[in-house]
């Protein structure tokens, strides 16, 4: 069969909605925090699950509601577009201390009014000692806390925020509405016996589910009433009709099952936004939207009740709304997740649970919606397998060619068996979707805890050279002075020992946080839409899901590979240098001067720590620090020697050039992270599974990492994901892809991320698209898992740095997501520009 591939025009409404969204800087609003606190104060002493449900209800009863101009799909979490609520139950200290800088910081600034500051300050007093982050801290070992302080890994995501990172049972809400879920909970409740050992917990959980679902229904009714009211006072006939329709739709859904595509769209949106009011967890991913919406679309289309254009407009409206939600993060995390991204991953195409191709009209229309709206949300992905229709891949390639960085391409042929190896049934594995950046899971059955921490694989390598010391403190095991190591095996074993030690601490930290969430922030609303919480009578946070994982991600494989390889060759095989000399060279940053931007950053860090220790700091002192930081102390003779070493390192083979020896070496190096991880368990009854991707943390965490033996200079970015280090893959895209495919993508079942940057000329014309599709197919044939592309010329990005005002809507692929280029920090912008640009020849 031939799919409908004719272009569908963008309705004028969509541009108006987009323009309205980006009129102003996003703002922080206090309503949710105030309501939450009121409710918590009134429920002291009650079971936590009940308190959560009551707070959710209280919030939904009183949160200001607004229908924005021109909207067809309604429901907003904040008064102002792209605003954000705050979630003090997870953490609050960071925001309080950043009140005065959050508006002016470089990454993801937010406006906050004086009034909001005062309101929040008042509310915050209540939360001292009550947050998940405080409880998590007290559960962690001292060693884990020290490791975090020294930047060995950062569990920041869930340490300070909700978990998110899931796809709930949208199809169930679309089919039976919250009324149906309430019935299910009531039935389960009726089956309990008062004498059951776990009656108390189960019954309270089920009551909380019922209360939360009722709250969602009532919230929609508020919108129905508001729309009806607005209709009465609207003079414009067309708009009045639209508002009347909104009123009618919100009366029906999400309380009952959707009877039309229109209702299905609105019902979907309520689910999507309410999840993000209950908790601050991001990466709430719509998943296989094209699959669960299709029956509603098809029915209306066949019955002549809906045109393709109308369906497209509704989808476009949802795409816009996904950008209306926002989240403020602490300054450091904002750099790691730069671009105001909520990572709501929506995926099209792929197989159904029986292994047949499931691409449909809506898969194509999802591409079109992304093209029409041209915004960073949703994080749009496509699934590819042997049976993927060529025309769908070409349509996806057309979107890639626009430079928006979407879609990301995922390989069914790797992900399905990888998930099976983690215990998913074949049917469930085939029905996977992607969470957040690159993390696969089976929707509505999984609590994946994807994105559980960033683990910088370069840091343990630094510690090998310092015998476990960092900034003078013994934070890692004593693996021996490098000067005494006689064989490469000794050196590699030291690295493995450092890795193993910090992986265990990472697990300790994640599990401490996990327990804290179960105890302080179980989420009844979220749990109502994930199997088998209702059946088991417990929340997702307590292990209610069928599949439970913790997925912390490692990055820096390319640097570790190139670096270990350099040591192996130059020290132990060619015997040209000693490890002692390597160490000196690394300490001296290979005799290189630091660039002024980096030096300034480091100076600021040093200054901040001096001030924090209570000392005064003069202008003169700062100048001295800067000069010392920037200048290199090495003598000219030493500099010459270091330069020679650097040249020798640069002449060695590097990961990313299709050379078997070093590529297979990279495979082994990646195992130093992925293999130990599999042996750990989490408190929800699941296991740890590694991912290999950095989001955008390779830049800020690189800025905390000294020089590495691959010739990477101190404080510069670390290689992103499984991609070769920037600028080191010089044999073209096929060679680079072949290298990356030699890693084991199955064991990294929490996802791998391979970034490629193309010059626009490479995708020119139909033949450019065809070749691009062949590249994706070829990489996937060789069992790569994920691929994403930036198609923007270096000149364009440079110009955007100079004239940000001209490029307000320039979207680029950052890591597992796309963001507006001009909102990224300078360091991240540079990193994106420096990724190797592949051209067709």
């Amino acid at each position: 069969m031939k799919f409908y591939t004719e272009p569908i025009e963008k309705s004028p409404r969509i541009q108006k909605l987009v323009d309205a969204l980006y009129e102003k800087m996003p703002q922080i609003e206090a309503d949710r925090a105030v309501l939450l606190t009121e409710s918590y104060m009134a429920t002291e002493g009650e079971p936590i699950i009940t308190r959560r449900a009551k707070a959710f209800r209280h919030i939904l009863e009183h949160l200001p509601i607004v229908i924005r101009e021109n909207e067809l799909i309604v429901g907003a979490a904040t008064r102002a577009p792209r605003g954000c609520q705050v979630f003090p139950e997870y953490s609050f200290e960071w925001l309080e201390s950043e009140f005065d800088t959050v508006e002016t910081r470089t990454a993801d600034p937010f406006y906050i009014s004086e009034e909001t500051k005062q309101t929040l300050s008042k509310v915050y007093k209540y939360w001292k000692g009550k947050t998940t982050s405080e409880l998590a801290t007290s559960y962690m070992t001292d060693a884990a806390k020290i490791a975090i302080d020294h930047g060995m890994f950062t569990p920041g995501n869930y340490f300070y925020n909700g978990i998110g990172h899931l796809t709930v049972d949208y199809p169930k809400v679309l089919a039976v509405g919250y009324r149906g879920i309430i019935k299910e909970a009531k039935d389960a409740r009726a089956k309990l016996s008062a004498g059951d050992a776990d009656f108390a917990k189960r019954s309270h959980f089920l009551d909380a589910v019922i209360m939360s679902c009722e709250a969602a229904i009532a919230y929609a009714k508020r919108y129905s009433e508001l729309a009806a009211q607005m209709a009465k006072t609207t003079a414009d006939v067309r708009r009045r009709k639209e508002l009347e329709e909104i009123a009618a739709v919100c009366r029906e859904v999400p309380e009952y099952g959707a009877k039309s595509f229109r209702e299905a769209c609105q019902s979907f949106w309520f689910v999507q936004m309410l999840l993000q009011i209950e908790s601050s967890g991001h990466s709430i991913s719509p998943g296989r939207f094209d699959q669960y919406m299709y029956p509603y679309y098809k029915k209306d289309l066949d019955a002549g009740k809906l045109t393709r254009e109308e369906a497209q407009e509704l989808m476009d409206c949802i795409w816009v709304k996904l950008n209306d939600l926002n989240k403020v993060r602490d300054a450091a995390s904002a750099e790691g997740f730069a671009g105001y991204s909520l990572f709501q991953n929506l995926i099209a195409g792929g197989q159904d649970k029986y292994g047949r191709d499931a691409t449909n009209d809506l898969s194509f229309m999802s591409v079109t919606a992304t093209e029409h709206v041209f915004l960073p949300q949703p994080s749009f992905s496509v699934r590819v397998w042997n049976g993927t229709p060529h025309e769908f891949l070409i349509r996806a390639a057309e979107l890639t060619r626009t430079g928006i960085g979407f879609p990301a391409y995922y390989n069914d042929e790797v992900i399905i068996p990888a998930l099976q190896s983690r215990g998913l049934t074949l049917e469930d594995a085939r029905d996977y979707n992607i969470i957040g950046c690159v993390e696969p899971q089976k929707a509505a059955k999984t609590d994946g805890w994807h994105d559980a921490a960033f683990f910088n694989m370069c840091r343990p390598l630094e510690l090998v050279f310092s015998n476990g010391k960092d900034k003078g403190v013994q934070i890692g095991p004593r693996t021996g002075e490098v000067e005494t190591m006689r064989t490469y095996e000794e050196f590699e074993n030291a690295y493995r020992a450092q890795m193993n030690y910090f992986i265990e601490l990472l697990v300790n930290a994640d599990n401490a946080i996990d327990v804290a969430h179960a105890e302080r922030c179980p989420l009844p609303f979220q749990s109502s839409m994930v199997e088998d919480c209702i059946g088991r009578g417990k929340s997702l946070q307590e292990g209610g899901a069928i599949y439970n994982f913790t997925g912390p991600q490692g990055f820096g494989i390319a640097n570790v590979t190139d670096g270990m390889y350099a040591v192996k060759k130059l020290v132990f095989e060619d015997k040209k240098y000693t490890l002692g000399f390597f160490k000196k060279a690394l300490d001296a940053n290979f005799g290189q001067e630091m660039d002024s931007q980096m030096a300034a950053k480091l100076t600021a860090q040093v200054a901040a720590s001096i001030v924090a220790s209570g000392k005064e700091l003069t202008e003169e002192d700062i100048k001295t620090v800067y000069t010392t930081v920037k200048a290199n102390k090495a003598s000219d003779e030493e500099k010459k020697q270091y330069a020679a070493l650097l040249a020798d390192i640069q002449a060695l083979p590097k990961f990313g050039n299709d050379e078997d020896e070093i590529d297979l070496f990279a495979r082994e190096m990646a195992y130093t992270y992925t293999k130990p991880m599999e042996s750990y368990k989490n408190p929800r009854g699941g296991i740890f599974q590694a991912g290999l991707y950095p989001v955008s943390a390779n830049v800020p965490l690189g800025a905390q990492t000294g020089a590495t033996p691959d010739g990477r200079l101190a404080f510069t970015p670390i290689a992103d994901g499984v991609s070769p280090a920037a600028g080191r893959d010089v044999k073209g895209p096929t060679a680079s892809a072949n290298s990356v495919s030699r890693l084991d993508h199955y064991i990294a079942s929490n996802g791998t991320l391979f970034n490629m940057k193309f010059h626009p000329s490479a995708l020119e014309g139909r033949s450019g698209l065809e070749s691009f599709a062949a590249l994706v197919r070829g990489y996937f044939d060789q069992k790569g898992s994920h691929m994403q592309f930036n198609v923007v010329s270096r000149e364009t990005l440079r110009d955007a740095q100079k004239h940000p005002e001209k490029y307000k809507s320039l979207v680029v692929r950052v890591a597992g997501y796309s963001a507006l280029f001009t909102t990224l920090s300078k360091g991240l912008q540079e990193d994106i520009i420096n990724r190797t640009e592949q051209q067709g020849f």
Partner: protein
Amino acid sequence: MEQSYLETKGRIFNIQRFSIHDGPGVRTIVFLKGCPLRCRWCCNPESQEWHFENMVQGGVTKLVGRDVTVGEVLEEIARDRVYYRRSGFGGMTLSGGECLWQPEFSEALLRAAKEMGISTAIETTGYAEMDVIRRLLPYVDTVLMDIKHVDGEKHKEFTTRDNAKILENARQIAKEANCLVVRTPVIPTFNDTESDIRSIAEFAKSLGTVREMHLLPYHRIGSDKYAGLGRTYTMAHIEPPTKEKMQTLLSVVERVGLKGQIGG
């Protein structure tokens, strides 16, 4: 089993992977060194001489040329097999320089590629003895052959060689090759008039089996290399043909009854 042809030696100066604007699909191009012609506009001047040369590019001196065996080249070619297959018609292209000037090497390389199921093409001036060309043809899917001018004098003036042998070979190749595509670099002051192109197109049409003719617009991308080799680029003053001009010439080709195309 004896596979001594894999040991056949040849001289190349580059292997270019993921070549997507030079023939159908994803291709790997092997650039052989040494050419009988000296076209004034040549964008790969380092391909012309047989002997190794130093070329300065971006301040770095690089030795151009290396001797390799068929087996070594195949190893590199085979690495992108999956992409050739996925792009439908991708494969290996021998370019130059002139592959006909290293017939043992070219024959062995083409034969081995075909045995591995890789589709093959050659880009050639056609300037060689027909017996030599015949050795290669069984292993070539597509012959991309330059017809630069039908006028012998003009041809000699701009390329240093007469075109009689080339035109004669074209007639034979058209009969014997699996597929022959005629290509013409469009060079202002040499062959960029409508009548120049029409003559070439009519000649191509007269060959009987030729269906396609590609017009390759002159460009100056290789001009820096002349300085890098210590030579003089004599066409620095020539402007590339405009898009409109190329379109006009394309319609000339199509009027003759061939499928025309701008670029490779």
